[in-house]
């Protein structure tokens, strides 16, 4: 109980500390933390489907991209305020997840991953094709953003929401059931668990948040174009952050996103031309050496509750 209180106190201090950052930190630090928040939310979202059920969403950035376009369109064409426009990114992202998840979540193993990988390419192609609406390859330009603090809070709020939701799920029977799908889907089915429906729920949730993040991103970057909002590398980055921290845990994605963002910031500044190679080596290292991630290892070794 005291450990729990300690964790809670730590979290409160951390949140309070982060909340006041924009008041005194430089613009650079604020933008850096915005990106960390963004990765936390993305890695946490991916965790909801792939960390829990084991279904590897290899094209998760598609939901981010769809959200980004939704936000951009609502802001530029419908004149919405960026905050509701960003949040609205959740709807089409979840709708896309429904359309693709309903058939494809039946696919086993690598086939789902392949289907998701292709989905991203296709959404990008479609966005480029319907250029009257989306601006095609040249994308959409948004009005410049003059104050980044609101984006900071919005992005931070999204990251917190994903984390809180993950906590609620993991401590619920819904969460256990998602894990049972990862562990042994057939056994879960035979025990009366409607895996198809649960997978779809998890997928919708896990798609909605990248949609929101994408919506905010559009405002933040003030320009969206197919190439910048659908890169495969974004999917890989969110996966590796989640894995590094510990998939299937609450704070794994948070920790992974935080550590790797700091790491990337350093590597990118110091090893200009080899940072891709370092990132590649890092991926290989995480997969081979700590596939459970930092928290996964700690959790197993010290029998910690899954809700870390």
């Amino acid at each position, binding site marked *: 109980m005291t450990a729990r209180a300690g964790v809670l106190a730590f979290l409160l201090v951390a949140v309070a500390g982060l909340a006041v950052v924009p008041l005194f930190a430089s613009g650079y630090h604020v933008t850096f933390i915005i990106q960390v928040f963004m990765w936390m939310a993305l890695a946490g979202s991916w965790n909801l489907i792939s960390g829990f059920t084991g279904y590897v969403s290899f094209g998760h950035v598609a939901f981010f991209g769809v959200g980004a376009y939704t936000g951009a369109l609502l802001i530029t064409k419908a004149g919405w305020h960026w905050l509701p426009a960003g949040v609205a990114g959740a709807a089409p992202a979840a709708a896309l997840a429904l359309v693709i998840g309903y058939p494809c979540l039946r696919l086993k193993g690598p086939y789902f991953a392949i289907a998701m990988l292709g989905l991203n390419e296709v959404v990008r192609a479609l966005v480029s094709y319907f250029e009257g609406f989306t601006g095609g390859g040249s994308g959409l330009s948004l009005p410049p953003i003059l104050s980044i603090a609101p984006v900071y809070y919005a992005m931070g709020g999204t990251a917190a929401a994903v984390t809180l939701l993950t906590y609620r799920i993991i401590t619920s029977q819904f969460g256990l059931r998602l894990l*049972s799908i990862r562990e042994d889907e057939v*056994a879960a089915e*035979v*025990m009366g*668990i409607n*895996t198809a429906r649960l997978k779809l729920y998890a997928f919708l949730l896990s798609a909605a948040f990248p949609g929101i993040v994408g919506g905010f991103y559009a405002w933040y970057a003030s320009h969206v174009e197919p190439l910048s909002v659908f890169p495969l590398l974004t999917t890989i980055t969110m996966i590796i952050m989640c894995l590094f921290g510990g998939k299937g845990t609450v704070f794994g994605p948070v920790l992974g996103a935080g550590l790797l963002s700091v790491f990337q910031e350093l590597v990118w500044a110091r090893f200009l031309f080899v940072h891709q190679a370092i990132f590649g080596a890092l991926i290989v290292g995480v997969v081979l050496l700590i596939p459970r991630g930092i928290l996964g290892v700690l959790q197993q070794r010290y*029998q910690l509750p899954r809700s870390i």
Partner: protein
Amino acid sequence: MRDSPILEVREVVKRFGGVTAVNRCSLSLAPGKIYGLIGPNGSGKTTLFNCITGVEVRDAGEIRFKGGRIDGLKPHQVARRGIGRTFQIIRVFPELTALENLLVVTRGPSEAARRRAQELLRFVTLDRLQHEYAGNLSYGQQKLLEFIRVLITDPELILLDEPAAGVNRTLLNELLAAISQLRDQGKTVLIVEHDMKVVMGLCETVFVLDYGEKIAEGPPGVIQTDERVIEAYFGR
């Protein structure tokens, strides 16, 4: 006078490519009894289990549970009608704790479910290990866990796929006692088993499969002397 059957398998056929794994097989199970399903390796026992529980979709024939058709239902729907099963190779959820393995399948209010889960864990003396990952339990413990995971859903029909395989004598006796107890509670049990002693000691009726066909049915004593059965087991 017999009760109306709880499970009726009628002329069920299942093919894999050119191989017919289950061939026009019919069984009828009356409630409250223990049945055995035997046959040489590859005779289609597990496939039949899979067809009943919806893991495989039968190609022809009909399966009724308590009078209603269940062929064509999804596995979870079959389970919810009241059929539980174990697997030949243990399939507990290795990275869930023993307790979670039970809680994950319960329906209904959580406090009652938790109490029931702990009761069951005590019943098979796993209560001290309830927070251990199932994957870290010994083979026998996993077997017990899988067994009580079936019980917690309170099914009326229980299909057990080789419950005695790889289990030591003490544990085996406990298991057998538990199965008898289930019958006494009015459950129906269908057991696939190779250990003839188990089958003979427990089952009231035995079905024999060979090349996917039911070749004999009757009380264990009679089955043991059936020529076709001996032929199936010891070759022609």
